[in-house]
């Protein structure tokens, strides 16, 4: 297990190196002089010169990269040009909001996706299976920003049940907090539920056709016990690890969902930064997102090995 973990960590080094190169290179895509573009409407040559010095834009690109990586490794992601605050501080401020949304979305996705997948596999070829497959296709094909807008129209404008926008922290008022996040969480969880449904269905079909399930049935166990205790336990292991990888989709989805529901999270931070031409914030958000994604991949891999005795040995 330790060898596996060691190898897996070693493999991360070149991946992280290339991630840093990609994110640093984004700055090189700016058309024209980056210092002038970063200065925005400020045309004062002194300000432009100061930006050039601050970001070492007057130095060769490898030197710029070296100092950028050095900063990143010491937790310095640069400073927001507009808000005049360290990017790290901004990200740490917004991250808990997105995490709350993500956690709720995962719960919704697991509840809907796994249940629909199990029902679909157990009732294969019936109307239930057909309905679950239609649900999966619907989830995969619905743009989450449209679903968000339609839900606001129905539940906020027409029925007046839920707030259309805004965010209340959990620590302030948990009821209001849940009311302000339930719609965006559902929008986020919807697409992942569809993916989880497909994974669960396929894993359950495989488990239901295996020898140990046949043995369980031959022993005369109730069908419910066969499905829930024998087949589902084995089928859910790959589903949960695969589900962890869907967190990338979740972080992507959060960008649009937070924008629609005006939730001051991680996703809204990157969109606001894009429009304010706050490039250090854009780079910082992409870097942190990629790092979270890589860490989750690693955890998913380790969890898969841990719960699978054949791989452990």
């Amino acid at each position, binding site marked *: 297990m330790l060898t596996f973990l060691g190898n897996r960590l070693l493999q991360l080094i*070149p*991946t*992280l*190196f*290339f*991630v840093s*190169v*990609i*994110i640093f290179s*984004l*700055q090189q*895509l*700016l*058309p024209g002089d980056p210092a002038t573009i970063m200065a925005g409407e400020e045309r004062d040559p002194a300000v432009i010169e100061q930006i050039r010095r601050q970001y070492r834009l007057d130095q060769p690109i490898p030197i710029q990269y070296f100092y950028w990586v050095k900063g990143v490794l010491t937790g310095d992601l640069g400073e927001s040009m507009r808000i005049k605050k360290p990017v790290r501080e901004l990200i740490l401020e917004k991250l808990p909001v997105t995490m709350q949304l993500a956690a709720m979305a995962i719960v919704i996705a697991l509840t809907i996706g796994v249940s629909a997948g199990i029902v679909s596999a157990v009732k294969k070829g019936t109307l239930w299976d057909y309905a679950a497959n239609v649900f999966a*296709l*619907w989830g*995969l*094909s*619905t*743009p989450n*920003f*449209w679903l968000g*807008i*339609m839900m*606001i*129209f129905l539940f906020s*404008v027409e029925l007046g049940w839920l707030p259309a926008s805004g965010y209340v922290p959990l620590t302030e008022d948990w009821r209001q907090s849940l009311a302000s996040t339930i719609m965006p969480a559902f929008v986020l969880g919807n697409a992942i539920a569809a993916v989880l449904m497909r994974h669960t269905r396929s894993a359950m079909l495989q488990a239901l056709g295996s020898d140990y399930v046949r043995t369980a049935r031959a022993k005369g166990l109730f069908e419910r016990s066969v499905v829930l205790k024998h087949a589902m336990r084995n089928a859910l292991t790959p589903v949960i690890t695969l589900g962890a990888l869907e967190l*990338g*989709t979740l*972080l*992507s*989805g959060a*960008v*649009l969902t937070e*924008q*629609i529901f005006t939730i001051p999270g991680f996703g809204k931070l*990157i*969109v606001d930064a*894009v*429009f304010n031409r706050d*490039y250090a914030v*854009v*780079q910082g*958000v*992409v870097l942190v*997102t*990629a790092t979270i*994604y*890589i860490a989750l*991949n690693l955890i998913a891999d380790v969890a898969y090995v841990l719960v699978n005795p054949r791989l452990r040995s």
Partner: protein
Amino acid sequence: MVDATLAARLPLAADDGVESPARRALRRLVRRRGAMVGLVVLVTFVLLALAAPWVTPYDPIAQSWLTVRKAPSALHWFGTDEVGRDVLTRVVFGARASLMAGVISIAIALTVGVPLGLVAGYLGGFLDALISRLTDAMLACPFLILAIALAAFLGPSLGNAMIAIGITATPIFVRLTRGQVMAVKVEDYVEAARAVGNPRWRIALVHILPNILPALLVQATLSIAAAIIAEAALSFLGLGQQPPAPSWGSMLNAAQRFLVNAPWMAVWPGLAIFVTVLSFNLLGDGLRDALDPRER
């Protein structure tokens, strides 16, 4: 060249009476009702997009203050928007931007990703390690976040959005091609081609590539669906098609502000994205089943 080679290798009508793989795949595809519905819808959308100026009598850009936010009626089937433009006309013209963005961005991803995957899978060694790590790094950045960052740095426009989506979708094709090449390159017919002295480029292009095309075709179809959503998302955020040019994403952005008074502005462009993406997903699923050699 590749198409001609493929056609030569997989003749639609085999002379000896044995059904060719291409014909078998086509027969299986036609039997899949979902895939056929998807195909018909997509062909309809393409035709509507091409014939847009003749399909509707209105101008998609011209504003009319006399028809601001009119509800759907016999005159304006989908209603009008905040500056009096016909929503149906803009949905039809918007199909051009969405379909073009989906196809062109995936064409970019295929053009870059397939050769890189071929090189990595066939040659192996240092090049493989380098390309694979770069692919891992790109896949580590969530799709839309990387596309937003790229579009932000490149500047907002439909062309740049297509480039951003294309670059972001590339690693999927690198990884898929590499995996397929590694599976195919140990087959007997590749060994035979090598034994008779074919150069490496010829083996890769003439013997390996045609055999991995089905997997690439399925992935490309499903990726176009994802690319259409991504383009709509970028346009929704103001990073894709720029106003007043019509695009489903930017129409939704405008519609969000008038949800109380003019909900129809949000319904139709969203429905158009949903139906198009659903059709590509249905077609992709059908193609996957039809091209799967295990399904007889």
